[in-house]
Structures are given as structure tokens and as C-alpha cells.
């Protein structure tokens, strides 16, 4: 899969397949994070965030890859980890991997920044109950029909599902507005 194809498939929202494919870049990132006071779990979280940032960047405006995707993802991960370490204080980051050009660094930083705007909504939705979350995901993310959702969740009528869905959205809005 070429980097270009990956970008195209990102626009098609084939996130799962892509994540699997891009997992090949993970070992380098993991090595870096393990060398710099991180754990394997933290490395996974960082890698995942990096993928999300990349996907969002592609889907939210003109994205132009100026390096290889590998370099790009590594750059994001490295920056994310820098932030983490700064929060922990006293941790010194190895500069061994800082080989990216300034323009790439800028791209990376803007991508990370842009991604922050989703944080509040994500937090609101994430703090919903499991039932609400899965219901909303089925409808809005997986684009399932009300009938399918009713069947899958074992709810007797579509109407009940619909009502439940709206209640979930209202709840999310409530949480959203309470966050600042």
C-alpha cells in the first residue's frame, strides 16, 4: 500500500484496516518510547493517538505529505511523548531521533494542535454510559439502520431506540456544555 493509497483510504474512513497496516511502523516508535522512560502500554497509546491525528489531519483540510508516512507518524509520536514527559518533569528526552526538517516539524505541530479541538466533544461522548456510546456509534459511525440497531440491542421497537438515541445526545450535550 503506497502512502498515497493510504491517504485515499483514510478519506474512505477505512481506519481499522489502515491501523492494522500502519502497525508496521510501531516497533520504531515503541523502541523510542521505551528508551525514554516509557512503557509498552504508553507507546501503544501514543501510537494510537498519532494515527488518529494523522487521520483527522487528512480528513480536515488539505493534507500534503512532505516526508514519508513513517517519518510523519514517528514525528507526531515523538512530539506527543515530549509533551507527556514535560508534564512529568525532570525527564530528559534523547535527541537521537530529531532529524526532521523544520517544515515537517511545523506540519506536525499544527496537526497536533488542530486535533485538540475534538478533545472536548470526544470527552463528552466518552463519558457517556456504555449503552449510549454503543448506540450512538452504531447509528452515526457505523451508519446502521434503526431496525438493525433495535434487533442487535434486543429492543422491541425502533421508536424506543430512537428516543433512547436522542436522550443520549441530550446527555452528551449536557456534559459538553459543562466542560470548559
Amino acid at each position, binding site marked *: 500500500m503506497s502512502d498515497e493509497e493510504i491517504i485515499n483510504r483514510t478519506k474512505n474512513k477505512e481506519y481499522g484496516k489502515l491501523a492494522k497496516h500502519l*502497525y508496521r511502523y510501531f516497533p520504531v516508535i515503541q523502541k523510542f518510547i521505551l528508551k525514554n522512560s516509557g512503557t509498552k502500554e504508553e507507546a501503544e497509546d501514543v501510537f*494510537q493517538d498519532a494515527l488518529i491525528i494523522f487521520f483527522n489531519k487528512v480528513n480536515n483540510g488539505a493534507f500534503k505529505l512532505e516526508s514519508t508516512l513513517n517519518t510523519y507518524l514517528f514525528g507526531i509520536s515523538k512530539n506527543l511523548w515530549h509533551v507527556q514527559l514535560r508534564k512529568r518533569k525532570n525527564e530528559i528526552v534523547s535527541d537521537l531521533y530529531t532529524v526532521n526538517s523544520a517544515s515537517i516539524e511545523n506540519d506536525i505541530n499544527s496537526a497536533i494542535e488542530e486535533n485538540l479541538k475534538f478533545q472536548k466533544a470526544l470527552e*463528552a461522548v466518552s463519558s457517556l454510559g456504555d449503552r449510549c456510546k454503543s448506540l450512538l456509534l452504531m447509528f452515526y459511525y457505523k451508519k446502521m439502520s434503526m431496525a438493525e440497531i433495535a434487533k442487535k440491542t434486543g429492543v422491541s421497537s425502533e421508536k424506543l431506540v430512537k428516543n433512547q438515541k436522542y436522550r443520549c445526545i441530550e446527555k452528551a450535550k449536557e456534559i459538553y456544555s459543562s466542560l470548559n
Partner: protein
Amino acid sequence: MKFNTEIIDKYILNQLPESEKNEFETELSKNKSLQAEVEAQREILKGIEQLGMRTEVKNSIKKTKVGKLVKNTLSVSIAIALVAAAIYLVTKKVSSKQNTKTLYELNEKGEGNWALADKVLKSQIFQIDPKKDTIIETNSGIIFQIKANNFLNKFGEVPEETIDLEVKEAMTASDIIQAGLSTTSNGELLETGGMFYINARSGKEVLNIDQSKPLRVNVPSVTDKQMSLFEGQRLENGDINWINPKPMKKQLATVDITKLNFYPPHFLDSLEMMGFDRKNKKVMDSIYYSFAAQSICGELDYPVQQAPAQQAPAIKDSASNNIRALTGVTVEKKDVQQEIISGAISTRPALTISSDRNSSVEVEIDGEKLFKRNCSTCHIAHTHQKLTGPGLLGIEDRAPKGDWLIRYIMNSEKLIKSGDKYANKIYEENGKGAMTVFEATLTEKDIKAILSYIGSVKPAKLPRTGPSCIAEINPSRIKAIWDEKFNGTILATKEFEERMQVIFSTCNQDIFNLYVQNLNSNLFELDSIAAFVYGGDSKEKFIEFYKRHDGGVDIADDQNANLQKYLREKKTIYEESIRNALNKLYKNEADLANKAAKNRAEYKTELNANQVNLLFEEIDTNLDEAYRQLGKKRPTVQSSSSFQSAVVSNSGWHNVDRYVIEATVNRSTLNYTDTSTGKVARIEYATTKIKVAGYENYDKLVCYLLTDKLSSFQFMKDSAQTFTERLNQTFANSIIVVGYKGDKTFYKDEKYAKAQEYMFDLEEIESETLVRRINSRYDFTGTQNVMKDIDFNLIERKETIRMAKIESREKLRSRIFSIVYPCKQQLPDDVGFDQ
């Protein structure tokens, strides 16, 4: 119009009808709070998008991660398709619906997409009571083991009603191809061992497997390679991608333990060659278990290796004590076992008892034979161990010097009565049991030969003649596990049967215990421990076993504990009961042999006396006859040798007496002419010969000469297969021949035997009938003695047969011994026996 969440949602999703949309937009343009509301709702939808993305990425990475790790460690994986989730076994199939394609509208995910495989493969439906443990076996032999309460509905509850368990399987290449199942995992090709689908429903509702209680599945293995179980992931295009492999362990299939072979290697083959029926487990068991007492160090009261008549080995011998002292080895090694299990490996000191087979002892063969025939019933030559009589090791050193031993052996009673101090001491020490008098049966030369034999046998020779103590796999341990109680454990598997053969060859009780005491472990784990602990020749074999990765058999902790308790109890009980039984047997045999020897000695003494008397009787009778023929009255003197001086004083008749005595002793015809009267005294002896047809076929032939004049019988001399005797023609002579063959008796007689040659063809006759017939045919005074002698011979025959049986049994035992205890050197075939 009320602008609630629903309207906003529809507006954002562009689902409002045109009129409503316009109305909404008009309102939106002027209503700030509605604007905020719509904006917030848009944000929420973005949040949902982000969450969905994250969830998808996270799940994808998680699965990829596992796949990668496993792929790195397994070069070949075998796909076992598991669509819903997987597990273990089943007893009976309740129904199998044929030719149904997809029975249900929704798949295990509650979705409507079915793969080609779902449509092509037949469903097998098992109806299961959800609250009971169930084992099901599918058409192709996949076994699912389902525990009670294994399936839960969407509320996390166990369904009340019967569950339909749907299984589809594609275990052959053609099934797989027909079903269009892929054999790739993330694009990599798998070597498949078959695929199956399983899904449980209560009514139409799809049930979940309780994650704390995964099902177990046993798949028939097509290969020894390590297989993995892959989960099937439905792809949108209807394909199934195999992901998330889990290594499978080979769950062992248990069989009826009593049908397995836990005998040592070659045991059955060897016994079969010896003429036993290997299928007769009762007999095989009794032979095998009889060796259980063999390996108990220092605990036996009776030697078990040999028949009493050939008593030789002593279990409580100094050699084995020395070995124990040197090595500190005791029979029980529980502690060591525990350590092995906990991982701290401790090896026991190697126990090697060297068997000095090359040091053949130079003995005069006569002495050894004589010892075994006459002494071994009551004495052991090699040790101080007491049987009926004391052990004879070092007897010549401790007994008084000179000819004391010879005199004592000849007639101990006489020596004791004479007040001999040492003789009386021995008498007291041995429970005032008198020793057999051997005067009549043994010569001084014989006794010297025996003593030289005893002196030549050294205690160091013991391992050659019998095991001292053995720390190998004891048959009693096998008996304890070879029991239905162990059905359903790792022991009741073909795999363990195979290992057992190797365990035998290690001769290491600890390795046996390792397997037996860890029923809840996987065989391959135990193999690895065995390979590690045991450094011997079999190490490689255990490593091979380990590589097969044979699993275990699930067993509840309490069942394991119960079985271990049972084992500990049985082990001791079996050992003791077998040892007791053997001791009893040998004691019984020793008693019988003692009794027979005593009878034999008594009878022989009596017989000897009879035969001596008989000569005097005949002389006496002949004298009477001679005087009668000469017409003279016989002087009233006894013709006993002790009265010879009195006879000599009567010079006139001296010659006659001497002639008669000479003639009688030589059994030659007396032809005496009285010089004073011219009368002749003639007592003719003429030769009679008896030949017996098939002489060599009889175990024993006795030819009695019975006369009307004498009080007992006389044996006809056997020379060159012909019974020959010169018969006194003044007597009425009868000849009786009795033959013995096995436990059968044969007989032929000639009531009026003449001076000629007879050919006897003996007839078989019941021994009781024989005695009765002789009694009725002959009213001579000697008849009683003939009957007595026949009785004696019958008893002796039985005794001989009994001893022969014991002998062959012990010979057999000594051959089997090396099979049961393969690490001991083979006992020489001639141990204790010489034929």
C-alpha cells in the same frame, strides 16, 4: 415548531422535509440560542466520530498485536476456524438437521451477513440443558466440553430453556474449498487443520459465552505440529479472515485405563513366548504383581526369589545394608518428589548395586547339589539369616574344630544327648528344633563336599543369586494406578501408556511419581521436568515427548487430592498384601518341603533297617530249609551276627551255617552234602529278569520282589534297564512293578515268578485301586510294606511334581525379573537350579 434534539439531529443529517428545513433555517438565522444548540450538537457528532475512530483503531491494533506476536513464535500455524468463540466436548448429538443452510436470520454478531461457508455447510444442532455439564461430539469428531451455565443471554443470565447449539464444520480440504473458506490470516497463508463454527441460541436470541468459563474444544489432530486456534472475522465481502491465533494444547482423549498396557516393556511378549496367554489379564496381573514384594529393601521375612528348596537370597543381607549406608537411599523419596515439583531439582544419589556376574565361584558341583537337596530347605548358605535352621555363613569358622560338624550333621540328636556343649547351645538357640539325621543318607565325603560348598560361597555373591533391594518401579505402584478410579485422568491416555514404557526403562520411581502425582498438569510440562531431572539415556525420549506438546486432562482439584490420597493408601496396602501373600506362600512351601524331607528321612531309615533285617530273615529261613532237607534239627541259636561266636563253638554245624550265610548273601545256589549222612541241602537261586516296555518313558520305576516267607519286600536291582535278581527257588516269589509318570501310576505283577525273563507292559491304574489290588492279591506279610512303599513313592511323586512346579515357577520368575526390573542385571538362568 419546537426545536428539540430530534429536529436538530434531522437538520444536521439533512433529513428534514424541504418546508420544515426552510422554517428551521429561518428560525436558526435569528435565534442565537438555537445556533449554539445546533453547534453543540454538531460537535457531539464529531465527538462520536472521534470515538468511533479511536475504538476502531484501538481494536484493530489490539488484534494485530496479538497476531504479530504469535506469528513470530510459530512458524506453522494451523487454522481452526472459530467464529463465535470456542471450547471443548459433547456426549450425544440430539439432532442433526440436514441440508439446512442458514437456519437463522442473524449471525453470531446479531448481523445479517452470512458467508458462503454458512450457506454451504450443514448445521448440526445440539440441544443442551444450559444448567448441566455437557459433552458433545460432532460428526467429524470435534468434541466440545460445555460446563453448566456456560452460556449467558444479553442480561448476563443463564437461559432457563434448552439451548440450541449450532455447529458447522469443514474439517476436510474438500469441505473447506466447497465452503469457500479462506485459509489466510491477514494475507498470510495458513496450513489449516479444519474449521468450525459454533453458535448458541436460546430461541432466536444469540447467547454469549461466559468469559470466565471458556468452552473447551478438542479437535482431532491431523498432525503433530503445534496448532493454533484462530478466530474468524467476518469481512464485508463475505470472506472470513482468520485472526487472533491462540496456541492449542493437545487435550488428551482418555480411554478405559484397564485396556491400556502398563506392563514393563517386553513383559507381554516374553510371557507369550513362555507359553502364557497374554490376553488373560488376570494371569498377567498375578505374575506381574507378584514381583511387588521384590523391591522392598530389607523388609522381607522370606527370600522371594527362590523356592525354599533353593533358599539362597536373603533380603536383609549385609550387602544391601551397606549400600544403603553408603548412599543414604531409602525407599520413600517423597521429599525429593515435592522438590522436583516445586522446581528445585534435587537428584537422588545413584543407587547402583553391582552384580558381580563374572566371579564364578569354584565349587565342587557335588557339594552344591547335595546342599540344595538336603540342606537348603532349612538353611541358607550365604548369610546368617535363619530359616528353620541357622544361616550357615562362616559355619566352619564358628563351629568347634575337628570332626564336630560332621558328627553333628550325621546325627545331631546323638551328639546333643551325649552332652556336647556346643551342640546343646545350638539346640537351645534354635528353639529346640532337632536337625534331620543324615547318617543314613549322607556319607562323610558328602558332608565334606557340602561344607566346602558352603565355605566357597561368599556373601558378595548375593546380588547374583537374588536382588537385595531395588528402587525401581514397583508393580504395587502400577497396581495402584491401573484402576478404574483413574479413568478420565492423564493416566488413562494412550499418551501416558507410551510414556510408561520409557519410565520403566529409566527405572526411576521418582519419574513415575512425577507423572502420577500431578494429574492436573499437562503431560508436556511433566515431560520437560522428567527430561531435565533425568539425565540418562531416556532424556532424549522425554524431550521428544515434550515436543509433541501433549496437554492434560482437566481434573477437579478435589478429585486429584482424593486420588493422591487413594494412591498413598493403596501403595502401602498393595505392597503389604503382596508381600504377606508371598511370605505366606513361601513359608507354606518351606513347611511342606520340611515335612516331606522329614518323612523321607524317617522312611528311608525304616527301609534301610528293613532291608538289613530281610537279609537275616532270609539266612534264617534258608538255614531252616537246609536243616530240613538234611533231616536235622536246627540248633536253637539265632543266626544273628552278634551270636556268631556261639555258633562257632558248635563245631559240628559250623560249615553248614557258613555255607548258608555265604549263599544267601551272594544269592547263589547252596549245594551242601552232609558228609556224615550223605544227604544234600540244596537251596537254589535262579535268575529272573524283568524288562519294562517303554522303560525310559517313566519318571520312576520300582520293582518289588515279594515272597511268602519274608516279612518284607526286596527291591529288584536295576541294571541296564533290566530288573534282575536271583530268586530263592524255595520261596513262592511274586514280582510287582510300579511305574510313575507325572501324576499317573502304572502297574504290572507276576504272582508266580519263574526263573525266566519277563517283558512287562504296565497298565495305568488309579493309585488307590493299585493299593487295593495288591492288598487283595497278596496275603504275604511283606505286602504291607509294599503298600507302604507305594504310598511313600506317591507322596514323593507329588512332592517332586510340586518342587518341579516351584522350580519352573522360580525359573520363570528369574527370567521375568529382568523384565519387571529392567535396570537390574539379568539373573543367571541357573540361579538356584541345576538339572
